[in-house]
């Protein structure tokens, strides 16, 4: 009985043509399934990454194949004050903007975690700055920061707080702070909504237990909310640091690195030297010099936060 069943089954399998059988072969199927994704990523991500490192050690310009020049590009950059200024501003921009984004984003997430009417509508509105193309909202900020027709200047003068227009982007330090504020503005929604998702997974019984033990609001935040939020905080912060450090759009749209190169980030400097300037080798060297910062920032934020989470878990058990 069972033998005949197996035989018919085998015959049916044989009836299927070889193509179908090939696609039912697990190893073949795995290769075929991974091929598009891995192929795309290899050709347009891994290979360029390697090529970028190679270009950094050559004197390639647009339209001319370069030759290997060793560390010449880096030696030139290390003696270039504009490069060091870009390094400084990239670190400063990332540091201040990350702190601002996470402080305000966490605050907003805690506010949204209350019982509110129209909660989903509020959440939808708050995500808007993150959905809209960054360059376009950056242009809006550029207009808000206009030296002559800034709306902020107008309000401050009308309120009698200032006599003259505020100088937002025409000198180095105000320009830096203006860019940092625009970056914080753009980053708040992402941080707030991600952390809100983390907050909603925290069990209310933990707060009830803390309340019974007489914990104050601050203690409930410090010893319940914060430790429970750390894993998601670590991931969101890693992403935020990487994409703030390599930011390009905001600076390019609002100041283009000016006034007098004071607001160049490494990415905008790499673009300026590499594409319009034509010095592909030098641009690639600037881009490659971002990698150590990125690796360090990633490892730091990930391990620092992840380790504290682990310690917290151990003491709680």
């Amino acid at each position: 009985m069972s033998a005949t069943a197996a035989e018919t089954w085998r015959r049916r399998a044989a009836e299927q043509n070889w193509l179908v059988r090939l696609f039912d072969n697990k190893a073949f199927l795995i290769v075929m399934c991974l091929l598009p994704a891995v192929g795309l990523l290899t050709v347009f991500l891994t290979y360029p990454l390697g090529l970028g490192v190679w270009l950094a050690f050559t004197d390639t310009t647009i339209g001319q194949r370069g030759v290997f020049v060793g560390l010449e590009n880096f030696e030139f950059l290390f003696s270039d004050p504009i490069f060091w200024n870009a390094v400084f501003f990239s670190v400063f921009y990332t540091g201040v903007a990350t702190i601002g984004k996470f402080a305000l984003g966490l605050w907003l997430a805690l506010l949204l975690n209350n019982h509110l009417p129209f909660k989903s509508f509020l959440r939808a509105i708050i995500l808007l700055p993150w959905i809209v193309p960054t360059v376009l909202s950056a242009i809006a900020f550029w207009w808000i920061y206009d030296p002559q027709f800034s709306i902020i200047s107008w309000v401050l003068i009308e309120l009698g707080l200032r006599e003259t227009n505020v100088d937002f982007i025409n000198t180095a330090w105000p320009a830096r702070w203006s860019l940092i504020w625009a970056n914080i503005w753009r980053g708040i929604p992402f941080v707030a909504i991600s952390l809100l998702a983390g907050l909603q997974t925290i069990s209310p019984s933990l707060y009830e237990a803390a309340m019974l033990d007489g914990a104050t609001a601050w203690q409930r935040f410090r010893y319940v909310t914060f430790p429970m939020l750390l894993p998601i905080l670590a991931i969101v912060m890693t992403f935020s640091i990487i994409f703030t450090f390599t930011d390009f759009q905001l600076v390019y749209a609002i100041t283009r690195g000016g006034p007098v190169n004071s607001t160049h980030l490494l990415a905008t400097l790499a673009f300026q030297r590499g594409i319009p300037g034509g010095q592909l080798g030098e641009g690639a060297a600037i881009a490659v010099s971002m990698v150590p910062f990125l690796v360090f920032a990633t490892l730091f934020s990930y391990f620092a936060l992840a380790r504290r989470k682990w310690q917290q878990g151990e003491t709680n058990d």
Partner: protein
Amino acid sequence: MTDAAAEEQVPTSRTAPPERLSWDSGMRRFVVLWLPLVCFVFILLFPFYWMTVTAFKPDAELYDFQTHNPFWISSPTLAHIHKLLFETAYPSWLLTTMGVAVGATFLSLFASTLAAYAIQRLRFTGSQYVGLAIYLAYLVPPSILFIPLATIIVQLGLFDSPLALILVYPTFLVPFCTWLLIGYFKSIPFELEECALIDGATRLQILRQITLPLAVPGLISAGIFSFTLSWNEFIYALAFIQSSENKTVPVAILTELITGDVYQWGALMAGALLGSLPVAIFYSFFVDYYVSSLTGAVKE
């Protein structure tokens, strides 16, 4: 003695919570919750309001704050929108952007669905490491890649062609979509596929007829997310496209509308508004998918 001490403590700890609750209502709730929330919403939305107001203001009002209140429009005009639509190549920028976004989205969805299925369902030795490698690819920012990619694009003869963007955008879309879909496939019971296997279905039939229909919400999330990310992409489009009519909206507005030293703020804001509207409208239809994909990707 000990009893007395305990009794003394009990009333104080009992009175504390009601007191806090009574504080929670009214004035305190307003100051602690509503006031900051209103400030947040105001600050987050103000640039959009300002963008809209500027786009519909005639130039006379735009540059004269003394006689007109800048927060309001006395005589709204469509002049800036008209100028944008009929005197610039805006419609063709819009078409290019739409084409690139749709093409890149479908390419990434195709690649990442197959990859996620292979990693999550056709478990094989090292499938975790392939997943991890794809995740790490998401951490490589475009700012590092655009210079070498520009040389590759030139070598492939794709410079100044929207096809270059369709091929390059998956570098940041595929890792994201793959991780989103791996998470989604995980939530689909494996037993359903086992049933189909016992019934003699091939692996491809299972993927097409069982897993994919169940994963539609995940596919929609990944799709609209990819669409938005491609619409908003800037640095590759800036570096790889030269001719005016092939530019995408964000790049074109920044490079084509700014002529000379006097900025046409009305037209610029109209361009920014019209460039944001498609994604904003798209977004308003799929808000829940956005939130779920954003938070889903972070949780994975």
